[in-house]
């Protein structure tokens, strides 16, 4: 049960943190239509996280006699309890960095949910099926933007190269299974993430080619740092400080 809860929280945290990051653009987008587009994507992601958090809350309450809610999980856990990948918490940077982060993540979520909808756990399967429709669109939208920026102007090409340089190192973690992911895959309710890597790389390679971007990017092997196990970058602390402030400053209140 613990592993199922951990797995569900990991899925929830991924979507929440990425959704939160994307929502930072609302009101500040480069063009009105794109402001609306990225806000929609943020809404989809946060919506996904709510489904996962609500499920995790039910599981926790059933097994431990507590009464936690989606908000308890999102607002009252500290950074070391969050299980999102490092990629999702990276700062927005410019439009190129935001697009690339979304592209890498959506491609992963696409292949993940495509398999997860066959989960032996009915709830996870249902959430995955609904989420798949959304991330299919996110993947298409972000792919097109990667191509526009890669094959646009000299400046946009330069910027997306810089984005690749900043973000590529975080993509390995996605395909390395945490304990709870191994357990999930073994029991049939989760997905073996390492099995997704091939499809993911093919997709990235395909889009990068159309975008006139080099593939694979130069990969500097780094020290293994695992957001999935609660070991995050310095960014998550600030994200949570902002996100959780009201709940922490005014405990035991209804909002």
């Amino acid at each position: 049960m613990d592993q199922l809860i951990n797995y569900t929280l990991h899925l929830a945290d991924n979507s929440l943190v990425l959704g939160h990051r994307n929502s930072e653009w609302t009101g500040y987008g480069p063009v009105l239509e794109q402001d609306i587009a990225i806000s929609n994507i943020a809404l989809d992601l946060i919506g996904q996280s709510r489904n996962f958090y609500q499920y995790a809350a039910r599981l926790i309450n059933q097994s431990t006699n507590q009464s936690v809610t989606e908000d308890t999980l999102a607002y009252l856990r500290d950074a070391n309890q969050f299980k999102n990948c490092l990629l999702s918490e990276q700062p927005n940077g410019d439009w190129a960095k935001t697009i690339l982060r979304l592209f890498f993540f959506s491609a992963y979520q696409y292949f993940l949910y495509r398999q997860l909808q066959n989960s032996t756990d009915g709830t996870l399967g249902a959430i995955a099926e609904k989420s798949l429709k959304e991330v299919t669109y996110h993947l298409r939208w972000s792919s097109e933007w990667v191509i526009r920026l890669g094959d646009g102007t000299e400046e946009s090409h330069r910027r997306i190269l810089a984005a690749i340089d900043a973000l590529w190192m975080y993509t390995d973690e996605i395909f390395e299974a945490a304990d709870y992911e191994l357990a999930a895959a073994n029991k049939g309710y989760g997905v073996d993430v390492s099995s997704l890597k091939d499809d993911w790389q093919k997709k990235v390679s395909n889009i990068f080619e159309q975008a006139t971007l080099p593939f694979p990017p130069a990969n500097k092997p780094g020290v293994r740092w695992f957001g999935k196990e609660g070991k995050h970058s310095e960014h998550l602390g600030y994200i949570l400080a902002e996100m959780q402030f009201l709940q922490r400053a005014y405990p035991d209140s209804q909002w």
Partner: protein
Amino acid sequence: MSKTQWPLWEIFIRSKQGLDHKHAGSLHAADPQMAIENARDVYTRRMEGVSIWVVESKHIHASSPEEAASLYEPANDKAYRHPTFYDLPDELTHM
């Protein structure tokens, strides 16, 4: 294309149960794919099963108001085309 502004597109939406595409408004986009995606985000609120047409505004040709008289008048004297011409009993509903 101006480097500082994307062209204007007119958007036509046919709802799931609808019969025709209706003009919904306009927006700026760099290419047709973007125009359709923007239309989906802005004018359909992501409803499924809708059909979206996008046309660059410059490609729309419209009749001019002065022509209105000649284009439309001939039908006015064909009274049998209007429902009020037919005298039907009050009890008849839904027609």
